[in-house]
């Protein structure tokens, strides 16, 4: 049988870190994506331009480079900021950038750009007549968003969302490079220490495949739910 040489518990802990990181980044990315999509569709020139700059820059640069920039640069930027606060206002404040928080912010920030594109396309696919009908019923704009626009948009967004989630899940492996102890880092350390790379890295690959298969099943069910009333497409 599989002999993990005492690395088992740490590997499981690492798997927990991977899943938490992925889910929290997904939530952040969806929120950012909704904001970006609204900004891109807004009439304000400034909002539109800012959102376009954000999605273009983020999607043009490798995740790892952005991660290092935000992680290594982020701490330095925070230190500069708190130094300035101290010099000018005498506020003694030190923020330590936790690797986990940095990971969530970075991955959420990167995938917010991809989600923004997905949501923008989905919002534009919503039949305008539906929104006019909702307005004719006297719904306010928040109510229109909550009851009509969002559920109808999700139907179109789900395939893209599911795709983004799968890529995001695999991107979380990169945090091992900036020092977070996810399951990839534990497995890499164990491989180097024991000279048995396959014993640790193949189970990690299997866990990724398992998570991907479970999420595929969940997305298929969601898709069914959001497609209610539209027949098969």
């Amino acid at each position, binding site marked *: 049988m599989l002999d993990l040489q005492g690395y088992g518990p740490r590997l499981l802990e690492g798997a927990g870190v991977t899943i938490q990181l992925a889910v929290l980044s997904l939530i952040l990315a969806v929120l950012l994506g909704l904001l970006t999509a609204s900004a891109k569709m807004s009439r304000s020139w400034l909002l539109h331009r800012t959102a376009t700059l954000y999605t273009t*820059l983020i999607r043009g640069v*490798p995740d790892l480079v952005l991660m*290092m920039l935000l992680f290594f640069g982020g701490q330095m930027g925070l230190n500069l900021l708190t130094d300035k606060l101290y010099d000018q206002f005498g506020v003694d404040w030190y923020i330590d950038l936790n690797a986990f928080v940095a990971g969530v912010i970075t991955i959420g920030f990167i995938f917010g750009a991809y989600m923004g594109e997905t949501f923008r396309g989905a919002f534009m696919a919503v039949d305008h007549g539906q929104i006019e009908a909702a307005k004719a019923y006297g719904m306010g704009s928040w109510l229109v968003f909550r009851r009509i626009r969002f559920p109808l948009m999700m139907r179109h967004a789900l395939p893209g969302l599911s795709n983004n989630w799968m890529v995001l899940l*695999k991107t979380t492996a*990169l945090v091992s490079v900036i020092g977070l102890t996810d399951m990839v880092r534990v497995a890499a350390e164990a*491989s180097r220490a024991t000279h048995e790379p396959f014993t640790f*890295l193949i189970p990690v690959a299997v866990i*990724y*495949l398992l998570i991907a298969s479970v999420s595929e099943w969940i997305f298929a069910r969601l898709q069914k739910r959001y497609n209610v009333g539209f027949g098969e497409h």
Partner: protein
Amino acid sequence: MEQLNQWLAGLLEGNVIFTPQTLAYYWDGLVTTTQLVFLSLLIGLILAVPLAILRGSKHRWIKLPVYFYTYVFRGTPLLVQLYIIYYGVVFVDGIQESFLWPLLREAFYPALIAFTLNTAAYTTEIFHGAIKATSRGEIEAARAYGMSQALTMRRIILPSAFRRALPAYGNEVIFMLHASAIASVVTLMDITGAARFVYARYYAPFEAFIFAAAIYLCLTFAILYLFRYLEKRLLAHLKPLSGN
């Protein structure tokens, strides 16, 4: 060359971080990244065409192994694949006696193998989708002309499938360029590797990584425009007639 050097020295005068030597690191990194990405894409493409045809076979024992391969390589992080190959290559029986060992001992070739297998898996699925989307009428017409299955594949299905696959393949090329940044994790000095070196040496994260990001951005746009041009040329027959 002398003039260029003088011009560069003048431009960089008083610059602590971006000395000619630093720029040389980035240039070497650019060369490594380009070699790695170009070679893996090329070999991956050559592997993907037959695999895509096999993936669409009617026989279960031909179709399933290919599907298993693409499922595993698309479902796990490239970093894990790279680690498995980079750390695992030493343990392949007899590899240290083989003539390949001097090559495989360096980080470049394990990285190249990992990247090639990864992009081949994605490209196989892209081509498989494009082959499946061939209209029945085209295949029936080819049959009616008496073409054999192989000739139909070569003359009718593959050319039109390549065209249909072009936009998705363009995305894959950009994806590969970005994914290649993880080569720096196994000590390769690609663009990201150069940036990490400069960061560590001068403790200047913004300068080091933003400069690398700018190089990647330029490469991304170059690939984007190349594919947009190719699409315009090769998909011209699909454009609406009265389009503006």
